[in-house]
């Protein structure tokens, strides 16, 4: 089925938050700190106040009547800076004016006097003895971290995730092969093309916001808590989003926009520039020390990982990213001992949050490089070592939690075949594979309502967000399949928390799996209702009635859905309403998790130019292990998009920070992939083993390929003779490594 939103988007009719205009709306602009760490001595707003068209100016002093700190994991972030700024780009004030140019000019006219403080600009600086503390108050847990009991802050470390199983030191001491190295993953910007944008309206009805958010119900909860308003009086409306990839998960620009609208007494719209969104959220940079122990014949024994995730000045989703990274660190192998110590570290840089396949993207490539190195020393092939050591379905991935629910060996063989693994190649060409697992699904709470209208069409109400993945199309297909009617007659629109039922979040590849399951159950309630009505048409033989082609059939006789609804309600009006939900059931709790293991698998063929250090990605292949593809075309698009983002992450994307200042905060200097970076050959294999927990055996996709492709490019470049331990693989970095290798005794 074609995307239900194709025409709207092609014709330029699809409305995004930045296109929204509400009556009496003002335009907001944010004044941001130029310093990475400083005390605010004074704020002089008199010149800005005097400018014609300026309606309101918000500073920390306007927030004395509320607890102005938010954060779903750790409540550490003020709506605007209060007394101190902790990163360059932190909001210090905001202006609402009658037009955007006036708001911007007024924001520039505010004079802030700062007293600079020492900064910790890197993980190393933050961990050094006696390091300046980014936060000096006790840690306050947020309402939605889902990580059990949070420990107290330890210096600049705000969260720690550990796994300790087996006698790691003893296994390493006895192992034939030990591989160890340090790895660096850069800060990366998600670059959803639409920047963070919010329209907020505060009046006696409560708070209404139109927001670029992936998690409308979590934003609602944070806004309700911040401004002390009942949940039912906070209304979050989410139209189309111009991409998310995690950058719009949790709460971002909503609180400052609401606070400004509250001060102005009129609706306010804030649309970030790209440079502002780049300091609103990003992917964690990470350093890690990874060790792998194995026998001389390539049997993997133990893995030991220490990793530090730079969460910037505020935790955002850092704790969850750190935990997921910790889960991904061992890799999907049968270890006899594992030790993981992953720390989430504050620094004076922009806050880091979610980005597609977080955790797995950070660490899978490092572990996979070591698996290949073990294979090289053991004298076996990259495919063979994985075939021998990969977990089989039903085996435990980590202590506790869901056993493996995917056929990794089967996926590996498919991805290798799709790439053309065994073909001839020259010495400058490298091929690599990488396999990993990502704890997916987040918290399993979703609900949906399906309404069948009197004309036999239906409406799906669901609280997860259409970020571009095509969920509205997929939900219509799921409901259509249950209701035995064409998906084209089923409409699914955006979230409005006043009317759409609760959904926990949009991310972690969960929408088709969990919201989709809720839609399936809601549609099933209507199916049962339709059969009940039909049973009054043909009494005495309910088992002989079936739903087909938008009608109930009994032998050769049929009643269309509109006829059945008219029979129920007596007139041609009325509506059948079905509700469906998913919540943590049985023993599979969130703490034990995950909802499912997303397979992160990719293969790549690269060419390395030894003179220039330039790496070209010629071929890629991915496997979308989705259980059941509700819409195969949309599944392929997910993997293709993730592949390209993986190429960007691996080859050139990198936020360059020096002394707490982001140097490349624009698309000229921060390069993302263009169509010219598309490999000459790329393919996606869909695997449908119906082994997922979602509707019809489906499970999510769209993230795994990103981690898979980063890992595959890393192992492919190593296969061409250049093992790299720092991403991205820019020509300069690769060239330097080639020179180092020439000097090293082999």
């Amino acid at each position, binding site marked *: 089925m074609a995307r239900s939103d194709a025409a709207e988007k*092609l014709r*330029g009719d699809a409305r995004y938050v930045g296109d929204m205009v509400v009556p009496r709306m003002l335009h907001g602009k944010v004044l941001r700190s130029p310093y990475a760490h400083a005390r605010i001595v004074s704020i002089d707003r008199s010149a800005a106040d005097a400018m014609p068209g300026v309606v309101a100016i918000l500073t920390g002093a306007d927030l004395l009547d509320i607890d102005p700190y938010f954060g779903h994991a750790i409540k550490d972030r003020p709506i605007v800076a209060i007394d101190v700024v902790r990163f360059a780009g932190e909001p210090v004030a905001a202006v609402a004016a009658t037009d955007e140019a006036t708001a911007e000019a007024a924001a520039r006219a505010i004079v802030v006097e700062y007293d600079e403080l020492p900064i910790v600009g890197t993980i190393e600086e933050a961990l050094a003895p006696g390091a300046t503390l980014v936060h000096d108050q006790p840690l306050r847990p947020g309402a939605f971290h889902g990580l059990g009991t949070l420990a107290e802050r330890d210096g600049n470390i705000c969260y720690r995730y550990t796994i300790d199983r087996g006698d790691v030191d003893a296994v390493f001491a006895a192992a034939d092969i030990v591989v160890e190295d340090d790895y660096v993953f850069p800060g990366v910007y998600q670059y959803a093309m639409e920047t963070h944008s919010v329209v907020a309206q505060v009046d006696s009805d409560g708070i209404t916001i139109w927001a670029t958010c992936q998690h409308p119900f979590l934003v609602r909860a944070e806004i309700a808590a911040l401004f002390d308003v009942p949940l039912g009086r906070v209304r979050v409306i989410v139209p189309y989003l111009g991409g998310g990839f995690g950058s719009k998960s949790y709460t971002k620009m909503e609180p400052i926009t609401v606070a400004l609208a509250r001060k102005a007494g009129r609706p306010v719209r804030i649309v970030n520039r790209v440079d502002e969104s780049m300091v609103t959220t990003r992917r964690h940079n990470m350093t890690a020390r990874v060790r792998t122990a194995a026998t001389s014949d390539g049997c993997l024994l133990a893995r030991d990982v220490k990793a530090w995730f730079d969460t910037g000045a505020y935790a955002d989703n850092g704790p969850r990213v750190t935990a997921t990274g910790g889960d991904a660190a061992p890799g999907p192998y049968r270890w006899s001992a594992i030790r993981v110590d992953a720390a989430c570290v504050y620094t004076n840089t922009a806050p880091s949050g979610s980005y597609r396949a977080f955790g797995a993207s950070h660490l899978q490539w490092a572990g996979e490089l070591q698996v290949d190195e073990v294979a090289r020393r053991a004298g076996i092939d990259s495919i063979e070592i994985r075939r021998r050591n990969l977990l089989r379905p039903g085996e435990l991935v980590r202590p506790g939690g869901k056993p493996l629910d995917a056929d990794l060996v089967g996926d590996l063989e498919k991805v290798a075949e799709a790439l053309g693994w065994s073909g001839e190649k020259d010495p400058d060409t490298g091929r690599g594979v990488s396999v990993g697992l990502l704890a997916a699904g987040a918290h399993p709470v979703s609900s949906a309502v399906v309404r069948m209208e009197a004309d036999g069409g239906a409406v799906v109400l669901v609280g997860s967000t259409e970020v571009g993945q*095509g969920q509205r199309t997929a939900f219509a297909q799921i409901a259509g399949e249950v209701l035995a009617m064409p998906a084209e007659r089923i409409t699914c629109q955006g979230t409005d928390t006043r009317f759409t039922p609760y959904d926990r979040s949009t991310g972690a590849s969960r929408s088709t799996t969990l919201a989709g399951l809720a839609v399936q159950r809601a549609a099933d309630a209507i199916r049962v209702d339709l059969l009940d009505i039909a049973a009054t048409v043909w009494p005495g033989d309910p088992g002989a009635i079936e739903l087909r082609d938008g009608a109930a059939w009994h032998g050769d006789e049929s009643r269309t859905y509109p006829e059945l609804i008219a029979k129920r309600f007596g007139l041609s009006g009325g509506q059948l309403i079905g509700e469906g939900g998913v919540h943590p059931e049985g023993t599979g709790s969130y703490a034990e998790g995950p909802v499912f293991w997303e397979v992160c698998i990719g293969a790549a063929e690269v060419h390395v130019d030894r003179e220039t250090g330039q790496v070209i990605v010629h071929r890629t292949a991915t496997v979308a292990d989705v259980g059941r593809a509700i819409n195969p075309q949309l599944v392929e698009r997910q993997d293709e998009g993730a592949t390209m983002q993986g190429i960007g992450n691996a080859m050139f994307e990198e936020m360059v920070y020096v002394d707490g200042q982001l140097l490349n905060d624009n698309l000229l200097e921060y390069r993302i992939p*263009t169509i010219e970076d598309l490999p000459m050959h790329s393919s996606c294999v869909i695997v449908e083993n119906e082994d997922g927990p979602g509707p019809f055996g489906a499970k999510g996709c769209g993230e795994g390929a990103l981690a898979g492709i980063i890992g595959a490019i890393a192992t492919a470049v190593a296969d061409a003779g250049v093992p790299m331990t720092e991403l991205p693989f820019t020509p300069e970095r690769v060239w330097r490594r080639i020179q180092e290798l020439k000097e090293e005794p082999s």
Partner: protein
Amino acid sequence: MRIALELNGAQTSMDIEPQEFLLDVLRDDLSLTGAKRSCDTQVCGSCTVLVDGAPVSACSYLAAETDERVVTTIEGFRDTPAFEPIAAAFTRQAALQCGFCTPGMVLTIHALLEDGELTDEASIRRGLAGNLCRCTGYRAILDAVSEVVAARMAR
């Protein structure tokens, strides 16, 4: 200052500030929101509109420069016959996801097709390098445009 232009087939005159960019005039004054703002630096192509048939980045193009010229936005192009084959190929290939880049992409493709610049895969890669798409990974866009090119050549 006052400018007079042909906008989406209609003669239009309006008062603008000399420093105003075309994207602001289109979006804020004329409510033509099909052109999107993203990078603001002529890199991403999501604000692409046509001036005298040539694609320009409206985010960085002075509105004053459109005086006496012909401006086409997606709101004008979508009701012309040339829109249909591009839209059909994009729909068939699902060559869009979030849709934010799509109107700009469609206008660039149309302009390049009219100029005969799209003939093979290499020319499509070269021609569309100024229109970023973060969602699709470009494979489907390449396939959709290849279809349109092939259909035109077969005519």
